[in-house]
Each structure stands twice: as C-alpha cells, then as structure tokens.
C-alpha cells in the first residue's frame, strides 16, 4: 500500500465528520452560533493564531502564547508525574514492604477525580500556575504509576534469576534487567498519562491563570463563544496528538529490541 493511500485512509473519517458537521450547521436545525460550522471555527482559529481580523476579540493573535502556557504547565506536571510515577512504581513493584505500606493509600487516592482537588490545590499552592501544574500532575501520575508497577511485576523471572546467578547486585538487577523489562508497560503508562495531562488543562486552567488553551476555552464559554470553545478543544486535541506521537518515537527508539518481533513493528 502506498504512503498516499495510507494518508487517505487516515483522512476519510475526519473529513466525513467535518463535512457532515458543516452540512448540519448550515441546515439551520440549530442556531448557527450554537453549533458553529467547521469553516467558522477554522476562521476564528485562524484569527486566534495569526490575528488577521479580531474575530476572536481579545484573543486575536495570541494562540502561540496560549499554547506555550498550556504546554509549559503540561510539561511541568507531566515531568513530575513521570519521575515520581516511575520511581515509586518500581519501588512498589520490586519491594514488598513498599507495596504493603504505600499501595493502599495510592489505591484509595487513585479514584478521586482530579477536579475535586481544586479547593485543596488552592489552599496548598495558591492560584495561577502551581495548582494548575499540581492538577496536571495528578491526572498523569496514576496511569504512569500503575503501568510501571505492572511492568515491574510482570518482568520475566528467568531473566532476573540468570542475572542473579551471574552475580548482579540488586541495583544492577533493577537498572539492567527489571527497568528495561518494564519499559513497554511504562511507555503504555506514559502514553495514557500524556493524554490525561492534556485532558486536565481545562480543569487546571480554571484556577485563576491568565492564559492557556483551557483558560481561553473556559472564558469563551462564559461569553457563549462556542466557535472559540471548539477551536480550543481542537487545539488541545492536536497538541495532545503531537505529544503522543513524540512519545511513540521515543518508545520506538527505546524499545529497539522489539523491532520485528511485535505486531506494532509489523504495522509500521
């Protein structure tokens, strides 16, 4: 199959959805302002990015600043979640006493929706960036942690035995055997985590920040700017997609030993 036909396959569903949406919006079944057509959203989005006619009012030409603000918060919260989630996950997966002492608390906190942490986040961290980063961290932390625990616990016992027989210390075992063995699972957690981190930007940016895609989305909803709401949603989706693609590239490089031996490598 050629690259062109593969691209076409990928574009079929989004194009169909956009066309149906455009037709539905123009049919007059709903007020145009309530469900703006994709062409209207694109126009507003374009003004938000390039600032050509102030359709997006105060947001005109500010998209890059907003995207950077959100990306910075996501990077900070996600970065903390990656480091803490992987380290704690390895500790819980490897040492039984850590599992016994820490895991019950973690499992109890895990189902608590991140949005419900907002009051505590403000009390602990004040307003603006810090609580926003904390909320993003919460969203990304648990998937990364759970997948890391799973990866460590399902590491091949024979590999560990073989390394032990060759005189590997515990530190060497963790570094050279367990961690690489857990990597596929850790990467699965990283991919779920980055999606959760972007999902949390809207919630996180409700807490008195001054910029960001989530902030614009929330603020636009206040003024019934559904075109901007949709443009912000699309922006978050696109950036989420781009960061996920980046992690996939990293995963492909890190898991080079899997090339040719998994379904993913077959699909390319």
């Amino acid at each position, binding site marked *: 199959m050629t690259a062109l036909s593969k691209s076409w396959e990928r574009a079929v569903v989004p194009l169909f959805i956009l066309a149906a949406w455009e037709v539905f919006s123009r049919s007059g079944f*709903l*007020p*145009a*302002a*309530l469900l703006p057509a994709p062409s209207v959203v694109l126009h507003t989005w374009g003004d938000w990015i390039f600032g050509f006619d102030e359709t997006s*009012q*105060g947001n005109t030409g500010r998209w890059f600043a907003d995207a950077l603000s959100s990306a910075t918060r996501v990077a900070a919260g996600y970065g903390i979640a990656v480091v803490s989630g992987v380290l704690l996950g390895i500790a819980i997966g490897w040492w039984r006493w850590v599992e016994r002492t820490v895991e019950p608390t973690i499992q109890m906190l895990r189902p608590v929706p991140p949005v419900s942490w*907002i*009051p505590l986040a*403000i*009390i602990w961290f*004040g*307003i*603006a960036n810090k609580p926003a980063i904390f909320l993003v961290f919460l969203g990304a932390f648990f998937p990364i942690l759970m997948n890391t625990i799973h990866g460590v616990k399902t590491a091949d016992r024979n590999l560990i035995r073989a390394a032990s027989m060759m005189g590997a210390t515990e530190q060497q075992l963790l570094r050279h055997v367990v961690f690489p063995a857990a990597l596929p699972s850790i990467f699965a957690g990283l991919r779920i985590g980055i999606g959760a981190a972007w999902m949390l930007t809207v919630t996180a940016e*409700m*807490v*008195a920040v*001054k910029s960001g895609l989530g902030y614009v989305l*929330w*603020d636009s*909803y*206040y*003024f*019934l*700017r559904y075109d901007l709401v949709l443009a912000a949603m699309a922006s978050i989706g696109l950036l989420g997609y781009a960061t996920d693609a980046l992690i996939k590239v990293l995963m492909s490089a890190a898991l080079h030993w899997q090339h040719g031996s998994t379904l993913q490598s077959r699909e390319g």
Partner: protein
Amino acid sequence: MTFRSLTLTTVTAAFLALSAAATAPAADAETLKLGFAKCAHCLPMALTPELAKGVEIEAINFNSGNDVLTALVSKSIDMAQVTYLHYITALDKGFDVVAVSGQVNGGSEIVVGKGIALKADDWDGLKKLIAERKEKGEPLRVAASRGNAQDIHMRGALQKHGINVNKDVQFINIPNPSDHAAALQRGEVDVICTVEPFASQIRQTGVGTHFALPYDQAAGNLTNLIVTRSDVIKDHPKAVEATVGSVVALVDKLKSDQTVWVDVINKYTGMDKAVATEALKNASPDYAIHKDSTLAIATMMRELKYISNDVTAAAEKNLDYTFLEAVTKKPKSELGF
C-alpha cells in the same frame, strides 16, 4: 374465573388506574422546564413548582448560569433563570432570548483581605493605596469572576470613583467564585468582588472584611432575570404567563419570609444557615425588569469588549412585559420599563 385470569385482570386494572393518575395533571396543565443555577439568589427557583397555578413546572438545577443558558438556547429547557449579562451575551450571539420577569437582585460585595486596612466605603483610602502600590511597582491585585454580574458591578463602581481596572490595578480572573475565599486567605489577591453566599462566608470566617456594595453605578444592583424563547411564548403563552405568575408569587414570598429561602439554600448546598441568613441581607427579590440599567449593562459590556455588537436596541425590544403586566395587573411603567 381462574387464578391466572384474575391476576391478569387485577394487574391490567392497576396499570390503567396508575396510567390515568399519572396523565391526569398533564391533561389539565402544560409542563414547562425551568432551569436555574446554583447560587444563593438562584436556588429559591426550586420553590416555583409548588407555587405554580395552571402550569406544571419542572425545575432543573444546573451548576452555572452558562449551563442554564446553553440548555435554553439549545431547546433542552423552556425557561431559564440567568443573569442580565447572560441575556446581553445571548443577544450579542444572535440567540432568540426574551426576558419575561426579574427575580432577585443584589448579592455583590467588595471585600478586602486581612492585610488591607481600609474602612468601609473609604474610596479615597482605596485610591491612595492604589497609587502607593502603583508607585512601588506592586499594583493592587483585584479579583472577580470575569463576565459575571459582580465583575460588571465592580468595574462600574471602581470606574465611578476614577479607578480604571485595566490600568490602575492588576486584575485577576478567578472563574469559580467558590475559589475566592481561598485566594484571599492566602494573600494571593488584595481585593475581591464576590457573590453571596461566598461574601458572607469570607466575612464570617475572618478571611476578609467588607469594603463596599458596588451598586452605585449605571448597572445598579441588577443580577437575575427570567428568560425564555419566542417559540415558547408563541406555542405556550398561557404556560409562560403562569410561570411568570409563580415567579411573582415566589418574589412576594421571599420578601415576606426568608426562612424558606434559607432552608432551600441549606438543602441544596448544605451551607450553614447562619451564613445563608447573612447572605440574604444583600439580596433584593424583585420581579421588575429594569430597562435603563439593562441597557447600561449592554453598553458597559460593549465598552469592555465582552460583546462585539451594539445590542441595546435588541435588548430593549426583547424585554417582554406582557406577562408581568397580566400577572401583577400593573402597567409596565411600574415594572421597570
């Protein structure tokens, strides 16, 4: 008659009786869905079904006024309690909204943090403090929830005293009013224009102190409004009138007895009754629709670039006093027109 046929007959009869009972009110009165938000001033709308005569009101509680308005314009509900700002914003976006009654006004209060030594209504003191902070390069941090009634009240009041929110102070937008107290507590902001019952909570817990009620400006103390769509008016004029009647009855009830109001706040929010009682001191039940202040809000919102069009003509045209006049037997000149 066998046991089987007896059982079948009994079940069928019971089913038919229940169906008849369930459908009986619908045959007598139309049903309208009425949305309202979750704030101290909005919650008594939950009492409208029991005050309704000639209409079945299904009162639906939403988290915010925006959700209520979105439900109205997307035809999920028939009538809505929103703010005057929502009404103007909806007209700016070309939505079909018609104001048919007022509800409760007031509820805005400017409070200052513990570290700010300002007496109530000492506007000269505030201006002096703003100038000092500006000189130091540390502008006074003033917060509100951008786009709500308190934001407009505060901007109007500050402007009236010669303070430009965009130039003289650092404006901080805290979208969720329930976060105001925590921000003031931590000293992240110096001044907040907040909404009841959060204002009372802030004062009663000692997080902040009262500075002013920001009603001395063109928008007055306008807060809540009852709106519907023209298709609802066209298809169900009697039901709309009956619903306005229940709102008028509610307003009269709230004026004479605030216990029911306190109870409904307590029921829906779990808020302490002492706080709720305090909050209601800054509330004015009022079914009138105040035309001049409404138009002033439209002008202010345009100046602030909250809306992009001049909607004053539409705002005046879509104030429908017909139902209020019919229910109260008063001319519109006595109903805010």
